[in-house]
């Protein structure tokens, strides 16, 4: 059977990313662990995205609340706004939007950084000086994104809910305590857990695709730009695919 060239390229890419992921898992358990570089990456990733994630989250909560008010008001259900907004943000919109923001910010950063290290032979230089560049560069970054994206999502969820609270407060008055109470009451364990778990997968996908694109980027400066660009495109797509899978899975497990 013969596939058209575009399909062949896509399949080859999927194969290559899978092999790269396999390589990650075959290295991840073996010493030596680059602990210091791991913490440095966590700090960089978290620190660099914090502002962006906070602004996005804040606007998200604010806008969703303002937008849903008219509809809710039609049904006389304005009291339900905190609960509704809380559930949508925590279950779905928070994780996905923040993961997309991270794919743009972190994914492109990793793609460009590793891409330029590859092009200027810095990766070869590490290899020659006895440091395994895959462990030093890739394993640390993938761990860092896997752990930091969930942290960023949780942080954004809180900022977002605060934004929502302010929007609710524009008309009528609710105390922060009451607002929180309403949100917490509406949430159940099965809302929070799957949403939390999937953020780890989002983080992992962003890390591994950014690293893959950078680490295998072509020679030349165009290679670097291309690596950064396609890291964002592919990891954003991957976030949606993973989200779809997560929804199906929670549905199957009866967690809805």
């Amino acid at each position, binding site marked *: 059977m013969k596939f058209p060239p575009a399909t062949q390229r896509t399949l080859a890419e999927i194969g290559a990313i899978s092999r790269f992921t396999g390589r990650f898992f075959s290295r991840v358990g073996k010493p030596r662990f680059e602990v210091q570089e791991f913490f440095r990456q966590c700090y960089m990733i978290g620190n660099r995205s914090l502002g962006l994630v906070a602004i996005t989250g804040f606007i998200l909560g604010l806008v969703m609340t303002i937008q849903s008010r008219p509809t809710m008001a039609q049904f006389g259900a304005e009291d339900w706004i905190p609960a509704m907004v809380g559930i949508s943000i925590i279950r779905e919109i928070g994780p996905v939007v923040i993961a997309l923001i991270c794919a743009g910010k972190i994914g492109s950063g990793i793609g460009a950084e590793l891409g330029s290290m590859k092009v200027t032979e810095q990766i070869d*230089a590490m290899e020659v*000086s006895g440091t395994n560049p895959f462990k030093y560069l890739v394993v640390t970054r993938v761990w860092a994104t896997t752990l930091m994206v969930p942290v960023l999502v949780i942080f954004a969820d809180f900022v977002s809910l605060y934004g929502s609270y302010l929007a609710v407060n524009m008309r009528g008055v609710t105390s922060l305590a009451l607002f929180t109470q309403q949100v917490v009451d509406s949430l159940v364990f099965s809302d929070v857990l799957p949403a939390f778990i999937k953020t780890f997968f989002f983080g992992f996908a962003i890390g591994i695709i950014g690293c893959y694109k950078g680490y295998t980027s072509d020679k030349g400066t165009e290679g670097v730009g291309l690596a950064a660009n396609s890291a964002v495109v592919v990891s954003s797509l991957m976030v949606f695919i993973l989200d779809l899978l997560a929804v199906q899975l929670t549905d199957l497990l009866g967690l809805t």
Partner: protein
Amino acid sequence: MNEPQKNTDREVVLQVRHLYKSFGENHVLRDFSIELFRGENLVVLGKSGSGKSVLIKCIIGLLHPEQGEIQVFQQQVIGLEKEALDRMRTRVGFLFQSNALYDSMTVRENLEFPLRRHGRDKSLSEVNDLVMEALENVGLPHTIDLMPAELSGGMRKRIALARTMILKPEIMLYDEPTTGLDPITSREINDLILKVQDIYKTSSIIISHDMGCVRYTANRVALLVEGRCFATGSYDELQIHPDPAVNGFFE
């Protein structure tokens, strides 16, 4: 120019025999053979794209040739497992054409990097001394806390050289050490190469097509043409070589 020395009775530290390396249909090295004697500077000359970088990347184990033998200190490089390859690499320094300084690290961290793995038994002050010694050798101790982006091209080359020299390798592979530098800076790099040869008794392969660098640093010159070692000899011998493919380089 350096005095050419007699090749007989001299220890061979590095030997390449019948090396083949291609990328798809692009046959870069075809039956390439060469040897390096202890203490000499061997310059490999060749056109741009003739495969000079490929050759030394094969020697250091970054590229894997299809066929042939590479012996460094009587040890086969091809097929060497990771540990042994790392041990071999502590004895062979590689100066990259693009310097390959780590952009995200200061000069000090750059120089300490090779010691992370190969100098783990060293104390902090010993590491510090090594870094200072390497920087003083290249005349740039004041740059220790700068980032690579803050350095000029010539300074970067010298820092890269310092980073390579920090493990005191017995063999040095220089990939176009003077390309893209002004004549005066080139001269400084050439002086450094001779200084390294003199102080540490290093044997070196120098890749270059800067004839000034070749004349100044070479004990022996080898010509890479069409994937083979086309001719070897001293600078003067090759200059008067009858074949225009050889003496064409010296015009």
